[in-house]
């Protein structure tokens, strides 16, 4: 049995998450799915040649959850997948910290791989989150909102 409370498929949170705990939840009492594919995104220490000290994540309460639910629904319509979990953190996050988690289970690996990548690609261009980076350049600290990348839009468009 792979049924799951849809409300528990999405979590927008300031707190960190545990990869091991999330995998355990995807697997618990789930005897039909042989594949578990997870993706974790982390804060890296560089962007466009600048040294990054932190990222601050903002979202649109209500709309973010709604758009993620829509993306998960689309993934389920496209692939025979079992359980899905999407976690996205908000607030200020430092180098090496986890930002985002996507976990998908399915009977066989191809569906979980594809659905996981689809969810991440759509999250990047459809879900209302915005990153502000704090960078240090020549000893000076500044803050900038990140610009959206056309490569992300191009990647998401490949699915349609």
């Amino acid at each position, binding site marked *: 049995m792979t049924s799951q409370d849809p409300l528990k498929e999405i979590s927008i949170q300031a707190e960190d998450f545990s990869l091991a705990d999330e995998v355990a939840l995807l697997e618990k009492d789930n005897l039909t799915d042989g594949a578990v594919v997870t993706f974790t995104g982390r804060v890296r220490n560089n962007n466009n040649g600048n040294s990054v000290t932190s990222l601050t994540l903002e979202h649109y309460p209500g*709309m973010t959850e709604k758009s993620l639910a829509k993306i998960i629904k689309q993934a389920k319509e496209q692939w025979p997948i079992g359980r899905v979990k999407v976690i*996205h953190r908000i607030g200020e996050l430092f180098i090496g910290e986890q930002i985002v988690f996507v976990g998908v289970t399915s009977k066989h690996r191809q569906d979980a791989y594809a659905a996981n990548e689809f969810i991440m690609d759509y999250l*990047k*261009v459809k*879900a209302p989150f*915005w990153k502000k980076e704090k960078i240090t350049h020549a000893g000076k600290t500044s803050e900038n909102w990140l610009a*959206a990348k056309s490569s992300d839009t191009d990647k998401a468009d490949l699915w349609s």
Partner: protein
Amino acid sequence: MFVPSPMDGFTRIACLLNNTKLQQSHTLRENIMIKIVFFAALREQLACAELSLNAEDVKTVGDVKQRLSDKNSQWQQTFSKASLLSAVNHDMVDDSHLVKSGDEVAFFPPVTGG
């Protein structure tokens, strides 16, 4: 201090500078009003997180943008950007989308999560 002019359609509810209480403030005080919210770089540029607009004679999202553009040249510049995204009641929409009293209209830059 924000002093709304009776002509510009903005109500006595001035811009709120942060929207941390957004989830709790869905109820509008007047039933002929549209609630407008701004996010990220847009919120910072306008120094405004939220305001209310009189919905009379406003039919579409494009009309809302026009009304906001009329505020001053900085707002005019902001709302003429092609990359600006719009949402009504948490769904992404385009300028021709119809708005009605009680709607929550959001404007924000392209998203950069993940």
